[in-house]
């Protein structure tokens, strides 16, 4: 579905001619002529208007009755009157009716000062009421959920929150109960409204009926200053506004609408996770280990200790950059490593290396889709990722595309997810089977010559100017005849290896073939572990089979594990690649290899916001590695096990509200982080600490970095495809580097592989003795924001062992039972959850939980585990 180009129509409003896009509603069209029509229930983000509040009544010539401007589209030659006596009378009446039951407790109400009802009553109301009867009364205030308080007396029944729950987040929890003036908003059984996106209804509410518990009574609009920045908690990188009081305290976070990134929604983790910034447990002073205990010291002595330890280790230093590291920090870190210490061992990926050619291929502008391409795609393929947990805002985006824009969705992966119900096709694999499934899908797309010529064009060989660089696969390929042959028996075989049916793969391919441009949202998990390279190959083969490079509006969007994964790759935080994805002088070790080399060839470790015991696979190896490491410098915001036991120098890390710099969205959009609050305690900007450390270690020019924009400038100069970018150009809405002329400098990548070129995926692991194949997932709620924000703590997940009902019966395990999952001597405990859609012989565990972390059981290979009911204690 191509992006619509708006036609403009001219109509008359209040005596002036106004030109507005055809099909827009009168409320929006009037804005083109600077006419404001008051509304309560109308919100274009919520989809179709409902006309529930009647506030927007206007007079239209030729129609005897007043019409709702929110549900009347503009037409050519329409004559609209918004200021006549009739309209005024209607508006006065509506305000008066709304205030019949709305309490006038504005001084107490949290919405006071930023309340649409206040504004509209003041601007369009009569200023007095004739009602002397008592108002309706409800019990108040009530908790709608631990995050949201509801005051039913104030509700004007505008429908917004219910529409959000029913049509946007599709959790179907909120509804109107009872009738007439007893109507109220609630959940069906009175359960708390807990959902990943529940907080958005607070922003939507046009009165003070729904208020955020975290912000309740904290401040008035004139007490706060709003500071725009980016939420760096997850890879969605939503644009947010921090409400800051007294320059030091973030009181709330709300969405800063950017249609290209977040569409104006936020998840609850982003909305309420800010409380962790002000946690009393936060590290705010540098510490140095002296005689086995950590002691608070001055910055000068901490940096001296860090510099001395790192100088001693020299080229034997390794560095891990955490996902929330900004581009500037990553850039300085890799310079510190490569130029200051002569060590190539710097990595920003947790689970295994990515091949250079793959990193370059994935960065190619023609393979990149932008977020808004999801809206206009023919089909969306979600690969090995539970969007709701890993990039929640993309989940809402896909739901919008399905519901409102008729986009087809295909889910490929092993674990049943939130997008299964609306999906058009599901390719359910075994854990780790996505590689084979994608290969099968690519083969199936080439299997049948389509009747119409368009998809055949898609498979045309790419532009010959794309010179293969080698390394990936230098075989010639692309003859359709051979493809057809080689895959004839291949699809069945690949489907078997993926643990799925060939029928589901063919069905998905048929949908894709019939659809327009395809956007593939792929989870970084596909590229993890020993088969990671093959997984990326299969993805690239699918991209080729779908004709993504030649199709406008088609592309890949990664759903990475770390927020700024793309930016960190592009600024050179990969073991083999320097800034701009150019070959680094010498190849270093990836994170997984560092773990085995520490204490051996490597003696020191820098952790920049990374916690290998929490997020990196093979926890046992990392525990051993941290033990063996002679010297550990950690930038961290909270004391974790990795720090308190193993760190020699701890440097406090900024929170995202304090940070300045840029980060890169998975679709290539550079966005600006802007400092919203002052640094608490002795916290210093990380870029300045890294610059000073670099200067102490003799990195040329490191003393010259006096401000964060100076680092940004150096970074833009160092990455060829960012060349000439300025912070002004990035501005408040970000800038995709693919859209700039400098994108031509993106490194060339070899030709995309054809399905026939792929290595055969491994035979599916056959579990023995009733073992189960292990797969992992992430929970939206695992992470330090949940654990350190008092309001979110109730959501912090424990380990959950997801089993198929069949295996549950076989193992004698019911939902809620405590079970033990064991492999090779290491084991974790968790609570069993039997899930219907889960294929048998698979078990899914959460990564990154505080207790019973699945990383204990991972080692980069496909594994089986034994699950049994835990012995009662």
């Amino acid at each position, binding site marked *: 579905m191509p992006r619509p180009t708006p036609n403009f129509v001219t109509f008359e409003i209040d005596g002036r001619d106004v030109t507005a896009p055809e099909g827009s509603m009168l409320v929006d069209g009037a804005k083109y002529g600077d006419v404001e029509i008051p509304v309560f229930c109308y919100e274009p983000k919520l989809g179709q208007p409902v006309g529930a509040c009647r506030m927007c009544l206007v007079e239209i010539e030729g129609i005897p009755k007043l019409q709702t401007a929110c549900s009347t589209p503009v037409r050519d030659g329409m004559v609209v009157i918004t200021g006549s006596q009739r309209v005024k009378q209607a508006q006065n009446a509506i305000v008066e009716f709304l205030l019949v039951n709305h309490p006038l407790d*504005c*001084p*107490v109400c949290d919405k006071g000062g930023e309340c649409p009802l206040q504004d509209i009553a003041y601007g369009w109301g009569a200023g007095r009421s004739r009602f002397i009867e008592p108002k309706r009364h409800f019990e108040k205030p009530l908790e709608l959920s631990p995050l949201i308080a509801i005051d039913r007396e104030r509700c004007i029944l505008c429908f917004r929150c219910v529409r959000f729950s029913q049509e946007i987040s599709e959790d179907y929890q909120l509804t109107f109960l009872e009738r007439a003036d007893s109507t109220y908003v609630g959940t069906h059984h009175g359960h708390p409204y807990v959902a990943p996106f529940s907080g958005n209804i607070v922003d939507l509410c046009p009165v003070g009926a729904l208020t955020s518990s975290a912000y309740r*009574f904290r*401040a*008035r609009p*004139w*007490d706060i200053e709003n500071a725009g920045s980016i939420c760096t908690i997850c890879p969605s990188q939503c644009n947010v506004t921090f409400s800051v009081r007294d320059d030091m305290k973030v009181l709330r976070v709300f969405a800063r609408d950017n249609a290209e990134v977040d569409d104006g929604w936020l998840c609850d983790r982003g909305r309420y996770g800010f409380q962790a910034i002000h946690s009393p447990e936060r590290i705010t002073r540098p510490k140095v280990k002296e005689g086995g205990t950590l002691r608070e010291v001055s910055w000068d002595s901490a940096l001296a200790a860090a510099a001395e330890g790192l100088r001693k280790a020299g080229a034997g230093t390794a560095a891990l950059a955490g996902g929330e590291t900004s581009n500037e920090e990553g850039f300085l870190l890799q310079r510190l490593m490569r130029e200051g210490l002569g060590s190539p061992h710097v990595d920003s990926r947790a689970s295994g290396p990515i091949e250079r050619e793959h990193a370059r291929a994935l960065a190619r502008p023609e393979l990149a889709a932008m977020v808004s391409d999801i809206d206009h795609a023919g089909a969306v393929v979600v690969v090995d990722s539970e969007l709701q947990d890993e990039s929640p805002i993309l989940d809402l985006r896909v739901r919008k595309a399905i519901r409102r824009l008729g986009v087809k969705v295909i889910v490929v992966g092993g674990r049943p997810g939130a997008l299964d119900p609306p999906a058009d096709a599901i390719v359910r694999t075994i854990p780790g089977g996505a590689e084979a499934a994608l290969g099968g899908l690519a083969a199936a797309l080439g299997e049948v010559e389509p009747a119409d010529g368009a998809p055949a064009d898609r498979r045309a060989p790419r532009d010959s100017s794309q010179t293969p660089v080698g390394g990936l696969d230098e075989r010639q390929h692309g003859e359709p005849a051979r493809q057809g042959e080689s895959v004839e028996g291949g699809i069945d075989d690949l489907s078997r290896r993926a643990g799925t049916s060939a029928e589901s793969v063919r069905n998905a391919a048929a949908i894709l073939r019939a659809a327009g441009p395809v956007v593939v949202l792929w989870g970084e998990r596909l590229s993890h572990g020993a088969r990671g390279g093959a997984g990326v190959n299969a993805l690239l083969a699918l991209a080729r089979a779908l004709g993504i490079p030649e199709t406008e509006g088609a592309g890949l969007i990664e759903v990475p594990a770390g927020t700024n994964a793309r930016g960190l790759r592009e600024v050179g935080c990969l073991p083999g690649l320097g800034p701009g994805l150019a070959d680094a002088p010498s190849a270093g070790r990836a994170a997984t290899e560092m773990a085995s080399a520490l204490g051996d060839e490597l003696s020191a470790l820098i952790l920049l916001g990374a916690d290998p015991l929490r997020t990196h696979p093979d926890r046992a190896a990392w525990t051993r590695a941290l033990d063996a490491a002679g010297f550990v410098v950690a930038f961290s915001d909270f004391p974790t096990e990795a720090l308190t036991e193993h760190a020699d120098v701890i440097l406090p890390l900024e929170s995202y509200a304090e940070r300045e710099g840029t980060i890169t969205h998975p679709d290539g959009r550079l966005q600006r982080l802007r400092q919203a609050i002052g640094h608490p305690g002795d916290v210093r900007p990380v870029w300045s600490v890294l610059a000073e450390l670099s200067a102490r270690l003799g990195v040329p020019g490191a003393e010259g970095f006096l401000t964060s924009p100076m680092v940004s400038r150096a970074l833009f100069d160092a990455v060829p495809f960012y060349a000439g970018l300025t912070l002004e150009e990035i501005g408040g809405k970000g800038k995709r580097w693919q859209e700039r002329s400098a994108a031509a400098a993106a490194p060339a990548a070899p030709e995309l592989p054809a399905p026939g070129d792929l290595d055969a995926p491994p035979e599916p692991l056959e579990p023995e003795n009733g073992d189960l194949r292990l797969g992992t997932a992430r929970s939206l709620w695992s992470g330090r924001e949940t654990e350190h924000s008092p309001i979110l703590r109730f959501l912090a997940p424990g380990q959950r062992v997801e089993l198929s009902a069949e295996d549950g019966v076989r193992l004698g395990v019911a939902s809620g039972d405590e079970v033990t999952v064991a492999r090779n001597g290491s084991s974790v405990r968790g609570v069993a959850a039997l899930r219907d859609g889960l294929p048998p012989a698979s078990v899914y565990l959460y990564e990154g939980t505080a207790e019973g972390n699945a990383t204990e059981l991972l080692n980069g290979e496909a594994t089986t585990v034994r699950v049994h009911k835990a012995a009662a204690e």
Partner: protein
Amino acid sequence: MSDTPSNKSSNPAEASATRLADDVIAVQRAPSPTRSSSAYRAFGATLKGLRTTLARTLEKPTTIQYPEEKTPVYPRFRGRHKLHRFEDSGLEKCVGCSLCAAACPAECIRVVAAENTPEHQVSAGERYAAVYEINLSRCIFCGYCEVACPFDAITMGNDYELSDYTRSDLIFTKEMLLADPIERTPLRREGE
């Protein structure tokens, strides 16, 4: 009056002087003193002035012995602020709505609200002022806070004795504003 500037410039001699140079100022001198006028100046004017003085010596003194004695103020005098409680329940009238802070042109009021709980009921509504501070060294005593208050919780009192030794002591907290002030300033009586 005869000696207005226009009359002066109409004098032919001075007009000629003005003609000589623009910056020459003509000075009109008093007639040279005579004997009788000198005597009058020495004694007559002095006695005239003394008459007032002597007449006032018989009156009661009007000096107020501040600080032992205070000037009474008018009822609408805008002195130091007071916060009020309900007389019956003892709850604070202030609900912490921050409207006074919004109205304040000197930005000297800081309100941080919090939620009442059944165990800890401070004000009559759901909300109360957990922090209520007025920085009296910044206050311009305009009384807008009193006008803005929807609950008559803050009023301007009579107290004008507000000097202190440090600036920070002039930040009045909620407890100080709620406390019955020591009645230091008398109110002017009717007709006074």
